[in-house]
C-alpha cells in the first residue's frame, strides 16, 4: 500500500448526499478477479452514456477536474455494498482523499486499506471546501495527515480526527496482516482458551 503523508491537489465537488458504492463502481465491474484497472469505470453510469460516450456535464469529465486527486462530497459517502472495488476504482482514477461530513463504516475502513484518506469535517468546513473545489486548479486544497489538517486555498485550516492506529498505518504504508501476525502468540493463546470455554464453536 502507498503511504499517505501530504497531498496538495485539485478537488472535485460532488455535493450529492448518499453517494453509494453502486454509483462509485456499478456491479458489472465486480466481475474482475483483480484489484486494478477500475479507474476508467469509476462512477460509470454517471460518467458515460449507454454507448460509452462521456456525459459532458459530469464533474470528472470536465477539463477542470479530470486530474482531481480529492473529492469533496455530500453526507454519507460510500453507503451500501461492502465492495472494496469502490476504493480500488477511486485509487485507480487517482483519488487519494475523500472529504465529507460522514462516511459509511465499511467504505471508510476500506479506504485505509488502500492508501486513501477519508476525512470527516463539519458542514461549514465542507461548504468552504466545496467552494474551493468548484474553482478547480484555481483553489487547490492541501491535506496533511500528520498534522491532521485540511487547508483551503485561502489558508483556512480545518482540523480532523483520525484513529491513531489507522493514521500510523497510512503514514507508513503498513500491511496490517503483517502487523497482526506479529501477535500470533496471542491468537494461539486465545484459541486455546476459547476451545475450553466454547468447545462447540
Amino acid at each position, binding site marked *: 500500500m502507498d503511504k499517505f503523508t501530504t497531498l496538495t491537489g485539485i478537488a472535485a465537488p460532488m455535493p450529492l448526499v448518499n453517494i453509494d458504492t453502486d454509483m462509485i463502481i456499478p456491479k458489472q465491474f*465486480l466481475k474482475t478477479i483483480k484489484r486494478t484497472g477500475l479507474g476508467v469505470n469509476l462512477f460509470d453510469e454517471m460518467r458515460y452514456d449507454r454507448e460509452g460516450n462521456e456525459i459532458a456535464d459530469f464533474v470528472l469529465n470536465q477539463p477542470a477536474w479530470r486530474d482531481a486527486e480529492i473529492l469533496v462530497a455530500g*453526507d454519507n459517502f460510500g453507503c451500501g455494498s*461492502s*465492495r472494496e472495488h469502490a476504493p480500488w476504482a477511486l485509487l485507480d482514477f487517482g483519488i487519494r482523499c475523500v472529504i465529507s461530513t460522514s462516511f459509511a463504516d465499511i467504505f471508510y475502513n476500506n479506504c485505509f486499506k488502500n492508501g486513501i484518506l477519508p476525512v470527516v469535517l463539519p458542514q461549514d468546513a465542507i461548504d468552504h471546501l466545496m467552494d474551493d473545489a468548484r474553482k478547480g486548479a484555481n483553489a487547490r486544497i492541501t491535506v496533511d495527515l500528520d498534522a491532521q489538517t485540511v487547508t483551503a486555498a485561502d489558508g483556512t485550516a480545518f482540523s480532523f480526527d483520525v484513529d491513531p492506529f489507522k493514521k500510523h498505518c497510512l503514514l507508513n504504508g503498513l500491511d496490517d496482516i503483517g502487523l497482526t501476525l506479529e501477535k500470533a502468540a496471542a491468537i494461539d493463546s486465545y*484459541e486455546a482458551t476459547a476451545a475450553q470455554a*466454547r468447545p*462447540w464453536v
Partner: protein
Amino acid sequence: MTGGKTLYDKIWDAHVVHEAEDGTCLLYIDRHLVHEVTSPQAFEGLRMAGRTVRAPDKTIAVPDHNVPTTAGRENPENMTEDSRIQMAALDTNARDFGIHYYPVSDVRQGIVHIVGPEQGWTLPGMTVVCGDSHTATHGAFGALAHGIGTSEVEHVLATQTLIQKKSKNMKVEITGKLPPGVTAKDITLSVIGATGTAGGTGHVIEYCGEAIRELSMEGRMTVCNMAIEGGARAGLIAPDEKTFAYVKGRPHAPKGAAWEAALAWWKTLKSDDDAHWDKVVTLKAEDIAPVVTWGTSPEDVLPITGTVPAAESFSGGKVGAAQRSLDYMGLTPGMKLTDIRIDAVFIGSCTNGRIEDLRAAAEVLKGRKLAPGVRGIVVPGSGLVRAQAEEEGLAQVFTDAGFEWRLAGCSMCLGMNPDQLAPEERCASTSNRNFEGRQGYKGRTHLMSPAMAAAAAVTGHLTDVRDLVAETV
C-alpha cells in the same frame, strides 16, 4: 458508565484477543463466510505472500452473487464468461485452501446469508464476518455479524481476526403488536425511514421489544439484514427459545453435552437492565403500516397509503437528492403511491428469500395471476428453501400465477448475473437496495415485503395488500 453490559458488549468481550492502549482491538472471528465476488483478490493476496488460511474449518465458501439462476447452470458452458471465471476461482480457492464449500451442484448452495443459518454455521454469541454488507443478517441469532472489505477478508483468512474499534450501542425498540398485513420488512424499512441511512453509523443496533420477540427467526433475519441500510455496523437480536429451536438439529449445531453447554451460555446473552445505550429509538408497532420506497435511497420510505413527496418537503442536501430520485424514478410529487404501475416483480434475496417469505407471497398469489404485461421471477434463497417450497406446493402457486421459478442465488437483487431490469423498467422488489442502477441500468426499484410485492404483481400497480386480502374475505 453503569456496570451493566449490552449483548454487543458481552459478545465483544468474549472475542477480544488483544487490546492496544488506544482501544484498537484484535477481535477473534468464529465464522468466515466467503463468496465468489469479493474473495478472489484476497486469496490471490494470500498466495502472493505465501500465507495459508489459519482456520479452514471455520471458513465456508458458497457462490451466490454472480451465479446464473436458470436451469443447466452446473454446466460451465451455460454461464457467462465472467461468471465462469469467478466460479472457477472460488472452486480452486476452496479446494486449495481446504475450506468448507457448497458449489452450485450442491442442493445446499444458496445465498451465503441463508446458507449459514440453515446449515447451523451461525450460532448465538459468535462473531461472523463476510465480504458482503448484508452479513448483518446473522445478527438475528444474537451473533455479532458484519460485512467487511476484501482486504479484511484476506486479513481474516490469514489471521482469523479483525482489527476493530468498538462501536457504540444503539437500541431500537418496537413496542406492542404488529397490525395484520404488516411484516418484518415493514419494521426494518420503517426504522430506516425514521432514522435515515446514516442514523446507525458508528453503532451496533440491538432490536428489541414485543414486536421483535413475536417475529419468527426468518422475520428477525429480515430485520437485521437491513441494519446496514440504516448505516449500522451490525444488527442484533437477543437469542431466545425461538432461536434455540431453530438452531437445534442443524448439521453444524452442537449436539449432546456440547448442546447443553452451549445453551447454558446462550441463555446469558442478553443486555442487562442497567446497560448503557448511546442512542435509543422507539417505534410503536401499531403505527407501522405496509410500506414501500419511492426514491433511490432505502430511507425513502412511505406507508402505501401515502403520496409521492415533493423535493422541497426535505431540507439540506436531501432536497437535491430527492429531486434527482424523482427524476430517476419518473415520479410526480402528489401522485398516490398506489397509482404507480409496475413492469416486473422480484421475490427473493437475503432479505426475503426464505421459506416464510415465499409462503407469504404465495398466500396472496394463490388462485391469482400476474397482471397483464407484468413479468415476475421468484428466486429462492437456497436449494433447500427451493426444495421445501416445492414440497409445500408453493412453487406450483408461483408458476400457476405466471412467475418464473428459479434456482438459488442473489439474482436481481444486485443484477450481476443476467437477471436485470431494462432501462426505466419498474420493479416491485423484496430486496434491500433501491439505488440507481442497482437492479439494472436505469432500472426503477420499489422495495417492499413479499406480500406487498405479490399484491403489486396481481394488480399491476403498487397496492395495499390489506385491501387485496380484504376483497377475498
